[in-house]
């Protein structure tokens, strides 16, 4: 087993994950429109290919062929950096997500994870907070009041909700005792999913995830009733496409993070039995399939909520973040501390 083979496998894995996240984002746009249509008793896109399955390609082609506009008074360099940064930070988040158990093919063991760094959760947080820079730089460089307002909203919203997101994660880390995504996933073997031990923490996390990905009901940065297009008002062509794409990749990544941290990742009840019967080459792939079912369910939930809840007003958003979520997250930490202490000292 040479190190060249390892590197090639790693590069292949990175490519596969990159392609999968792009395809997931592409088809999220299609799914979003289809799901929206079903929720509103409509049919949705059905012209491009059977059931409109080629719609994302048509949209992509349209985006590439549209006129590229850089406003005269915009800062050209930053104007281009904005969407690039948005899509870059969206894509690199997937590096620490464990997609499945270690596969063994012909004596080679393949980790279905790009890298298992021991601060995986922190890495995800760092990348997520970088994500807002793309929005901020793009909105600010546009030199447009609506873009600027959208960018400011995005920044303040992300900062406010990152606090409660971090606090809700602290309660989880108190139980897991590790920051490595792989270890957190392994601890939830079979049905021991963290959501059973951290229900409140999960609710806080998912609310914050909605806010971090700028999804309804927290889509104030691109609130079209007030801000035209929000931070991407001045964007056209594929630069706009990158912003929209980044949103969907973010949705995919945060669904994967939620599934890993709280819903057991690639673990499912009865996995040992399945693994023993299918062997170490096929068994982990079933785990990957289960993981993707969880991710897709979360993406569906994102869309379901989008067509259910109206947008928050800005003051309501701040009220919810600072006066409700943060106190709840702190209470959750205290309760988790008391609970785990009682559990270890008295054994019930």
């Amino acid at each position, binding site marked *: 087993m040479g190190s060249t083979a390892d590197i090639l496998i790693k590069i292949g894995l990175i490519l596969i994950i990159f392609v999968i996240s792009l395809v997931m984002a592409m088809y999220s746009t299609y799914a979003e429109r289809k799901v929206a249509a079903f*929720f509103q*008793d409509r*049919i949705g896109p059905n012209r491009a290919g059977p059931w409109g399955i080629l719609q994302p390609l048509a949209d992509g082609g349209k985006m590439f062929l549209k006129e590229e506009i850089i406003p005269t008074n915009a800062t050209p360099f930053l104007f281009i950096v904005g969407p690039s940064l948005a899509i870059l930070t969206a894509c690199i988040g997937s590096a620490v997500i464990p997609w499945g158990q270690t596969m063994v093919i012909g004596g080679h063991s393949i980790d279905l994870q790009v890298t298992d760094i021991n601060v995986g959760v922190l890495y995800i947080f760092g990348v997520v907070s970088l994500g807002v820079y793309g929005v901020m730089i793009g909105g600010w460089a546009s030199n447009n009041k609506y873009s600027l307002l959208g960018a400011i909203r995005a920044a303040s919203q992300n900062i406010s909700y990152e606090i409660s997101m971090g606090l809700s994660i602290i309660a989880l880390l108190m139980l897991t005792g590790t920051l490595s995504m792989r270890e957190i996933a392994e601890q939830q073997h079979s049905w021991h999913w963290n959501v059973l031990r951290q229900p409140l923490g999960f609710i806080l996390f998912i609310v914050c995830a909605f806010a971090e990905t700028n999804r309804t009901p927290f889509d104030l940065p691109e609130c079209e009733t007030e801000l035209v297009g929000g931070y991407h008002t001045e964007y056209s062509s594929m630069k706009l496409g990158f912003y929209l794409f980044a949103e969907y990749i973010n949705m995919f990544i945060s669904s994967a993070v939620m599934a890993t941290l709280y819903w057991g990742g690639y673990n499912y009840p009865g996995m040992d039995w399945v693994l023993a019967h299918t062997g170490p080459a096929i068994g982990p792939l079933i785990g990957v399939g289960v993981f993707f079912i969880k991710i897709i369910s979360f993406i569906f939930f994102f869309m*379901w*909520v989008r*067509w*259910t809840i109206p947008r928050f007003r800005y003051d309501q958003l701040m009220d919810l973040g600072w006066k409700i979520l943060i106190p709840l997250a702190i209470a959750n930490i205290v309760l988790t501390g008391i609970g785990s202490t009682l559990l270890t000292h008295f054994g019930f």
Partner: protein
Amino acid sequence: MESLSNKKKVLEVKPLNFMERAYLPAIVSGLATTMKHFFKKPVTISYPEEKREFSENFRGMHSLKRDENGKERCTACGLCALSCPAEAITMTAAERQPGEENLYREEKYAAVYEINMLRCIFCGLCEEACPKEAIYLDGDIVPADYLRKDFIYGKDKLVEAPLNQ
């Protein structure tokens, strides 16, 4: 003042109770409502392939009628053009020549008959004004087109298809 109809309702604005302020119960019931719609049959009619049924008195594109022998009924009296509030109808009359008796019912007929579909408001007054029962708005929706000139429909588009020879 005393209400005459007794339909007046005084609404009270009550402060929200805890369950309402907690967002989540309301959101869950909202999610249930949207999920119910998810499994409902779509009400969409895929237009060019399927068409919605028109009501009996729907007024669509005009057609110039023929009588039971396949002769054009219109005698170019101009009452339709006169009654038209949008001034969408114009026509040029001509005299029927010997040998054309099987084409036109009356001795005078419309050599040119044009309706500007962009002006027409589909009120049906031409239909009411016609003494010869020659024009009816019993057609389909007027289709879209690219140029304004193509919306001026002549006799080629308006006159009913001839009877089977």
